[in-house]
Protein backbone atom coordinates (compact mmCIF):
# COMPACT_ATOMS: atom_id res chain seq x y z
CA UNK A 1 0.00 0.00 0.00
CA UNK A 2 1.30 3.42 -0.93
CA UNK A 3 1.67 6.29 1.46
CA UNK A 4 -1.53 8.33 1.06
CA UNK A 5 -1.22 11.76 -0.52
CA UNK A 6 -2.25 14.45 1.92
CA UNK A 7 -4.30 16.55 -0.50
CA UNK A 8 -6.42 15.53 -3.45
CA UNK A 9 -5.36 17.11 -6.77
CA UNK A 10 -7.38 19.92 -8.32
CA UNK A 11 -9.73 19.33 -11.26
CA UNK A 12 -11.47 21.77 -13.62
CA UNK A 13 -15.16 21.11 -14.30
CA UNK A 14 -17.05 21.70 -17.54
CA UNK A 15 -20.83 21.40 -17.80
CA UNK A 16 -22.97 21.08 -20.92
CA UNK A 17 -26.25 22.83 -20.19
CA UNK A 18 -28.27 21.19 -22.98
CA UNK A 19 -27.65 18.82 -25.85
CA UNK A 20 -26.20 20.76 -28.78
CA UNK A 21 -24.46 23.37 -26.65
CA UNK A 22 -20.78 23.29 -25.78
CA UNK A 23 -19.33 22.34 -22.40
CA UNK A 24 -18.58 25.46 -20.37
CA UNK A 25 -16.07 25.87 -17.58
CA UNK A 26 -17.95 26.28 -14.29
CA UNK A 27 -15.27 25.94 -11.61
CA UNK A 28 -12.91 23.52 -9.94
CA UNK A 29 -12.85 20.94 -7.16
CA UNK A 30 -10.60 18.44 -5.41
CA UNK A 31 -10.79 14.69 -6.02
CA UNK A 32 -8.52 11.68 -5.71
CA UNK A 33 -9.06 10.47 -9.28
CA UNK A 34 -11.18 10.98 -12.40
CA UNK A 35 -14.11 8.84 -11.23
CA UNK A 36 -14.35 10.73 -7.95
CA UNK A 37 -14.00 14.04 -9.79
CA UNK A 38 -17.05 13.22 -11.93
CA UNK A 39 -19.07 12.30 -8.82
CA UNK A 40 -17.98 15.46 -7.03
CA UNK A 41 -18.77 17.56 -10.10
CA UNK A 42 -22.25 16.05 -10.15
CA UNK A 43 -22.75 16.77 -6.45
CA UNK A 44 -21.29 20.28 -6.46
CA UNK A 45 -22.17 21.75 -9.86
CA UNK A 46 -25.41 20.08 -11.09
CA UNK A 47 -27.67 20.29 -8.04
CA UNK A 48 -30.03 22.72 -9.76
CA UNK A 49 -30.35 20.98 -13.13
CA UNK A 50 -27.44 22.93 -14.58
CA UNK A 51 -26.48 20.26 -17.07
CA UNK A 52 -26.80 17.02 -18.99
CA UNK A 53 -23.11 16.18 -19.37
CA UNK A 54 -19.88 16.71 -17.43
CA UNK A 55 -16.20 16.89 -18.31
CA UNK A 56 -13.41 16.99 -15.75
CA UNK A 57 -9.73 17.57 -16.44
CA UNK A 58 -6.80 17.75 -14.08
CA UNK A 59 -5.92 21.40 -13.59
CA UNK A 60 -2.24 20.42 -13.89
CA UNK A 61 -2.91 19.20 -17.45
CA UNK A 62 -4.06 22.62 -18.64
CA UNK A 63 -1.42 24.56 -20.56
CA UNK A 64 -1.86 28.31 -20.11
CA UNK A 65 -0.50 31.24 -22.06
CA UNK A 66 2.16 33.32 -20.36
CA UNK A 67 0.73 36.59 -18.98
CA UNK A 68 4.13 38.22 -19.69
CA UNK A 69 3.53 37.61 -23.39
CA UNK A 70 0.06 39.15 -23.44
CA UNK A 71 1.26 42.15 -25.46
CA UNK A 72 2.65 40.03 -28.24
CA UNK A 73 -0.22 37.55 -28.23
CA UNK A 74 -3.28 39.78 -27.94
CA UNK A 75 -2.41 43.41 -28.70
CA UNK A 76 -2.10 42.91 -32.46
CA UNK A 77 -5.81 42.00 -32.71
CA UNK A 78 -6.90 45.35 -31.31
CA UNK A 79 -6.97 47.33 -34.57
CA UNK A 80 -8.40 44.57 -36.80
CA UNK A 81 -12.06 45.49 -36.44
CA UNK A 82 -12.81 43.99 -39.84
CA UNK A 83 -12.46 40.56 -38.24
CA UNK A 84 -15.64 41.06 -36.25
CA UNK A 85 -18.67 39.52 -38.00
CA UNK A 86 -20.69 42.71 -37.50
CA UNK A 87 -21.23 43.20 -41.24
CA UNK A 88 -23.68 40.28 -41.47
CA UNK A 89 -27.27 40.02 -40.32
CA UNK A 90 -27.79 36.94 -38.16
CA UNK A 91 -30.93 34.94 -39.01
CA UNK A 92 -33.65 34.96 -36.34
CA UNK A 93 -33.51 31.18 -36.02
CA UNK A 94 -29.88 31.12 -34.90
CA UNK A 95 -30.08 31.37 -31.13
CA UNK A 96 -26.70 30.28 -29.88
CA UNK A 97 -24.11 31.91 -32.14
Amino acid sequence: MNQPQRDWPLWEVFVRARSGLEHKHVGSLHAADAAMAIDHARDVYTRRQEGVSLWVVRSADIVASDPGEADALFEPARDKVYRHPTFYTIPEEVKNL
Partner: protein
Amino acid sequence: MSAAAQPVPPATITIGRDATPLLRYVLRLGDTSLILGQRLGEWVGHAPAIEEDMALANLALDCVGQARLLLSYATEIDGRGFTEDDLAFRRDEGDIFNLLLAEQANGDFGRTIVRQFLLDSYFIELFGGLAHSKDARLAAIGAKSEKELRYHLRYSENWLTRLGDGTDESHARVQKSLDELWRFTAEFWVKDEVDTALVAQGIAPDATALEAPFRRRVAQCLSTATLRQPADAPIALSGRTGRHTEPFGRLLAEMQFMQRAYPGAQW
Protein backbone atom coordinates in the same frame (compact mmCIF):
# COMPACT_ATOMS: atom_id res chain seq x y z
CA MET B 1 -48.24 33.07 12.74
CA SER B 2 -51.39 34.34 11.12
CA ALA B 3 -54.69 34.36 12.98
CA ALA B 4 -56.12 31.97 10.41
CA ALA B 5 -53.51 29.31 11.21
CA GLN B 6 -54.65 25.71 11.52
CA PRO B 7 -55.55 24.55 15.03
CA VAL B 8 -52.44 23.15 16.70
CA PRO B 9 -52.54 19.34 16.67
CA PRO B 10 -51.95 17.35 19.88
CA ALA B 11 -48.44 17.64 21.32
CA THR B 12 -47.93 13.93 20.82
CA ILE B 13 -49.49 11.88 18.05
CA THR B 14 -49.86 8.16 18.61
CA ILE B 15 -50.37 5.44 16.05
CA GLY B 16 -52.88 3.01 17.52
CA ARG B 17 -52.39 -0.75 17.49
CA ASP B 18 -55.50 -0.83 15.30
CA ALA B 19 -53.78 1.17 12.52
CA THR B 20 -54.21 -0.48 9.13
CA PRO B 21 -51.36 -2.58 7.73
CA LEU B 22 -51.01 -0.06 4.86
CA LEU B 23 -50.51 2.86 7.27
CA ARG B 24 -47.99 0.92 9.34
CA TYR B 25 -46.12 -0.15 6.21
CA VAL B 26 -45.96 3.36 4.72
CA LEU B 27 -44.77 4.75 8.06
CA ARG B 28 -42.03 2.12 8.25
CA LEU B 29 -40.77 3.20 4.84
CA GLY B 30 -41.18 6.93 5.45
CA ASP B 31 -39.63 6.82 8.92
CA THR B 32 -36.57 4.95 7.66
CA SER B 33 -35.99 7.63 5.01
CA LEU B 34 -36.64 10.39 7.55
CA ILE B 35 -34.24 9.05 10.17
CA LEU B 36 -31.50 8.26 7.65
CA GLY B 37 -31.90 11.78 6.21
CA GLN B 38 -31.53 13.23 9.71
CA ARG B 39 -28.37 11.20 10.35
CA LEU B 40 -26.82 12.22 7.00
CA GLY B 41 -27.74 15.83 7.67
CA GLU B 42 -25.62 15.73 10.83
CA TRP B 43 -22.58 15.64 8.54
CA VAL B 44 -23.22 19.08 7.08
CA GLY B 45 -20.29 21.28 8.01
CA HIS B 46 -18.28 18.30 9.35
CA ALA B 47 -17.41 16.13 6.34
CA PRO B 48 -13.74 15.43 5.55
CA ALA B 49 -13.83 17.64 2.41
CA ILE B 50 -16.25 20.28 1.17
CA GLU B 51 -17.08 18.09 -1.84
CA GLU B 52 -18.11 15.26 0.51
CA ASP B 53 -20.10 17.71 2.59
CA MET B 54 -22.14 18.49 -0.51
CA ALA B 55 -22.42 14.84 -1.49
CA LEU B 56 -23.74 13.80 1.93
CA ALA B 57 -26.14 16.75 2.01
CA ASN B 58 -27.45 15.68 -1.40
CA LEU B 59 -28.06 12.16 -0.11
CA ALA B 60 -29.77 13.59 2.97
CA LEU B 61 -32.07 15.75 0.85
CA ASP B 62 -33.03 12.77 -1.32
CA CYS B 63 -33.94 10.85 1.85
CA VAL B 64 -35.96 13.75 3.25
CA GLY B 65 -37.71 14.05 -0.12
CA GLN B 66 -38.65 10.37 0.00
CA ALA B 67 -39.81 10.80 3.59
CA ARG B 68 -42.03 13.73 2.62
CA LEU B 69 -43.74 11.76 -0.15
CA LEU B 70 -44.27 8.75 2.11
CA LEU B 71 -45.34 10.62 5.25
CA SER B 72 -47.70 12.82 3.28
CA TYR B 73 -49.27 9.63 1.86
CA ALA B 74 -49.44 8.33 5.46
CA THR B 75 -51.41 11.40 6.56
CA GLU B 76 -54.01 10.65 3.88
CA ILE B 77 -54.34 7.01 4.96
CA ASP B 78 -54.42 8.10 8.60
CA GLY B 79 -57.26 10.54 7.89
CA ARG B 80 -57.04 12.57 11.13
CA GLY B 81 -56.02 15.76 9.29
CA PHE B 82 -52.36 15.80 10.35
CA THR B 83 -49.56 17.07 8.12
CA GLU B 84 -46.34 15.26 7.22
CA ASP B 85 -44.53 17.60 9.65
CA ASP B 86 -46.89 16.59 12.45
CA LEU B 87 -46.00 12.96 11.83
CA ALA B 88 -42.27 13.72 11.72
CA PHE B 89 -42.06 15.95 14.78
CA ARG B 90 -44.90 14.90 17.09
CA ARG B 91 -44.49 11.19 17.48
CA ASP B 92 -42.56 9.59 20.33
CA GLU B 93 -40.01 6.84 20.03
CA GLY B 94 -42.48 3.95 20.28
CA ASP B 95 -44.59 5.31 17.41
CA ILE B 96 -41.71 5.70 14.96
CA PHE B 97 -41.05 2.62 12.86
CA ASN B 98 -37.73 3.03 11.02
CA LEU B 99 -35.22 0.24 10.43
CA LEU B 100 -32.65 0.16 13.24
CA LEU B 101 -29.70 0.43 10.85
CA ALA B 102 -30.87 3.91 9.75
CA GLU B 103 -30.68 5.29 13.31
CA GLN B 104 -27.15 4.03 14.10
CA ALA B 105 -24.73 6.87 14.84
CA ASN B 106 -22.58 8.30 12.04
CA GLY B 107 -19.26 7.46 13.72
CA ASP B 108 -16.36 8.17 11.39
CA PHE B 109 -16.84 8.72 7.65
CA GLY B 110 -16.17 5.03 6.97
CA ARG B 111 -18.90 3.93 9.35
CA THR B 112 -21.38 6.25 7.64
CA ILE B 113 -20.34 4.74 4.30
CA VAL B 114 -20.86 1.17 5.57
CA ARG B 115 -24.31 2.07 6.93
CA GLN B 116 -25.16 3.80 3.66
CA PHE B 117 -23.91 0.93 1.50
CA LEU B 118 -25.91 -1.69 3.39
CA LEU B 119 -29.10 0.41 3.30
CA ASP B 120 -28.62 1.40 -0.35
CA SER B 121 -28.13 -2.25 -1.35
CA TYR B 122 -31.42 -3.08 0.39
CA PHE B 123 -33.32 0.01 -0.83
CA ILE B 124 -32.38 -0.51 -4.45
CA GLU B 125 -34.18 -3.87 -4.34
CA LEU B 126 -37.01 -2.60 -2.15
CA PHE B 127 -37.84 0.49 -4.20
CA GLY B 128 -37.37 -1.48 -7.41
CA GLY B 129 -39.97 -3.93 -6.09
CA LEU B 130 -42.28 -1.13 -4.92
CA ALA B 131 -42.23 0.33 -8.44
CA HIS B 132 -44.42 -2.67 -9.39
CA SER B 133 -46.79 -2.25 -6.43
CA LYS B 134 -50.53 -2.49 -7.04
CA ASP B 135 -50.79 0.67 -4.92
CA ALA B 136 -50.35 3.45 -7.49
CA ARG B 137 -48.86 5.96 -5.00
CA LEU B 138 -46.26 3.53 -3.72
CA ALA B 139 -45.45 2.48 -7.29
CA ALA B 140 -44.79 6.11 -8.26
CA ILE B 141 -42.69 6.77 -5.14
CA GLY B 142 -40.76 3.54 -5.74
CA ALA B 143 -39.99 4.44 -9.35
CA LYS B 144 -38.82 7.95 -8.45
CA SER B 145 -36.72 6.81 -5.51
CA GLU B 146 -35.09 3.97 -7.41
CA LYS B 147 -33.34 6.50 -9.69
CA GLU B 148 -32.02 8.38 -6.67
CA LEU B 149 -30.93 5.12 -5.11
CA ARG B 150 -28.85 4.17 -8.14
CA TYR B 151 -26.69 7.22 -7.48
CA HIS B 152 -26.59 6.64 -3.71
CA LEU B 153 -25.38 3.11 -4.30
CA ARG B 154 -22.76 4.24 -6.79
CA TYR B 155 -21.50 6.71 -4.20
CA SER B 156 -21.43 4.34 -1.22
CA GLU B 157 -20.05 1.44 -3.28
CA ASN B 158 -17.18 3.59 -4.63
CA TRP B 159 -16.25 4.80 -1.19
CA LEU B 160 -16.48 1.34 0.33
CA THR B 161 -13.97 0.11 -2.24
CA ARG B 162 -11.67 3.08 -1.73
CA LEU B 163 -11.65 2.68 2.05
CA GLY B 164 -11.69 -1.12 2.18
CA ASP B 165 -8.95 -1.44 -0.42
CA GLY B 166 -7.17 1.71 0.78
CA THR B 167 -4.66 2.07 3.60
CA ASP B 168 -4.24 -0.35 6.51
CA GLU B 169 -6.03 2.12 8.76
CA SER B 170 -8.99 2.77 6.45
CA HIS B 171 -9.39 -0.99 5.88
CA ALA B 172 -9.34 -1.74 9.61
CA ARG B 173 -11.86 1.01 10.35
CA VAL B 174 -14.47 0.02 7.75
CA GLN B 175 -14.07 -3.67 8.62
CA LYS B 176 -14.78 -2.82 12.26
CA SER B 177 -17.85 -0.78 11.30
CA LEU B 178 -19.06 -3.58 9.06
CA ASP B 179 -18.62 -6.09 11.91
CA GLU B 180 -20.66 -3.82 14.20
CA LEU B 181 -23.44 -2.90 11.76
CA TRP B 182 -23.97 -6.16 9.87
CA ARG B 183 -26.30 -7.63 12.51
CA PHE B 184 -28.88 -4.92 11.79
CA THR B 185 -29.36 -6.24 8.24
CA ALA B 186 -31.21 -9.22 9.76
CA GLU B 187 -34.14 -6.85 10.33
CA PHE B 188 -34.55 -6.42 6.54
CA TRP B 189 -35.87 -9.98 6.27
CA VAL B 190 -38.14 -10.17 9.32
CA LYS B 191 -41.79 -10.54 8.32
CA ASP B 192 -44.80 -9.84 10.51
CA GLU B 193 -48.57 -9.59 9.93
CA VAL B 194 -48.18 -6.19 8.23
CA ASP B 195 -45.82 -7.58 5.60
CA THR B 196 -47.84 -10.75 5.10
CA ALA B 197 -51.05 -8.79 4.51
CA LEU B 198 -49.50 -6.36 2.01
CA VAL B 199 -47.51 -8.99 0.14
CA ALA B 200 -50.74 -10.97 -0.29
CA GLN B 201 -52.43 -7.88 -1.78
CA GLY B 202 -49.52 -7.24 -4.18
CA ILE B 203 -48.76 -3.92 -2.48
CA ALA B 204 -45.41 -4.75 -0.88
CA PRO B 205 -42.58 -6.80 -2.42
CA ASP B 206 -41.83 -10.04 -0.57
CA ALA B 207 -38.70 -9.54 1.55
CA THR B 208 -37.64 -13.11 0.79
CA ALA B 209 -37.41 -12.25 -2.90
CA LEU B 210 -35.21 -9.22 -2.15
CA GLU B 211 -32.72 -11.12 -0.03
CA ALA B 212 -30.91 -13.10 -2.74
CA PRO B 213 -30.08 -10.10 -4.99
CA PHE B 214 -29.06 -8.11 -1.89
CA ARG B 215 -26.67 -10.85 -0.79
CA ARG B 216 -25.23 -11.23 -4.29
CA ARG B 217 -24.48 -7.51 -4.54
CA VAL B 218 -23.04 -7.26 -1.05
CA ALA B 219 -20.81 -10.31 -1.51
CA GLN B 220 -19.46 -8.90 -4.77
CA CYS B 221 -18.83 -5.40 -3.42
CA LEU B 222 -17.22 -6.63 -0.22
CA SER B 223 -14.92 -8.83 -2.24
CA THR B 224 -13.90 -5.88 -4.44
CA ALA B 225 -13.34 -3.83 -1.29
CA THR B 226 -11.28 -6.70 0.24
CA LEU B 227 -13.64 -6.79 3.21
CA ARG B 228 -14.84 -9.87 5.10
CA GLN B 229 -18.59 -10.46 5.42
CA PRO B 230 -19.48 -11.02 9.10
CA ALA B 231 -21.51 -14.03 10.20
CA ASP B 232 -25.30 -13.66 10.29
CA ALA B 233 -26.90 -13.22 13.70
CA PRO B 234 -30.53 -13.00 14.79
CA ILE B 235 -31.84 -9.66 16.01
CA ALA B 236 -34.14 -9.22 19.00
CA LEU B 237 -35.16 -5.56 18.70
CA SER B 238 -37.25 -4.23 15.83
CA GLY B 239 -37.44 -0.57 14.89
CA ARG B 240 -40.32 -1.52 12.61
CA THR B 241 -42.45 -2.14 15.71
CA GLY B 242 -41.18 0.95 17.54
CA ARG B 243 -38.49 -0.70 19.68
CA HIS B 244 -35.26 1.21 19.13
CA THR B 245 -31.59 1.19 20.05
CA GLU B 246 -29.96 3.49 22.56
CA PRO B 247 -28.70 6.28 20.21
CA PHE B 248 -32.23 6.91 18.91
CA GLY B 249 -33.39 9.09 21.82
CA ARG B 250 -30.71 11.71 21.24
CA LEU B 251 -31.40 11.80 17.51
CA LEU B 252 -35.09 12.33 18.15
CA ALA B 253 -34.46 15.03 20.75
CA GLU B 254 -32.41 17.03 18.27
CA MET B 255 -34.77 16.45 15.34
CA GLN B 256 -37.95 17.30 17.22
CA PHE B 257 -36.68 19.99 19.59
CA MET B 258 -38.11 23.03 17.79
CA GLN B 259 -41.62 21.68 17.36
CA ARG B 260 -41.67 20.30 20.89
CA ALA B 261 -40.42 23.55 22.44
CA TYR B 262 -42.49 25.87 20.23
CA PRO B 263 -45.51 23.84 19.07
CA GLY B 264 -46.88 25.02 15.73
CA ALA B 265 -43.96 27.39 15.10
CA GLN B 266 -43.43 28.20 11.44
CA TRP B 267 -40.62 29.82 9.45
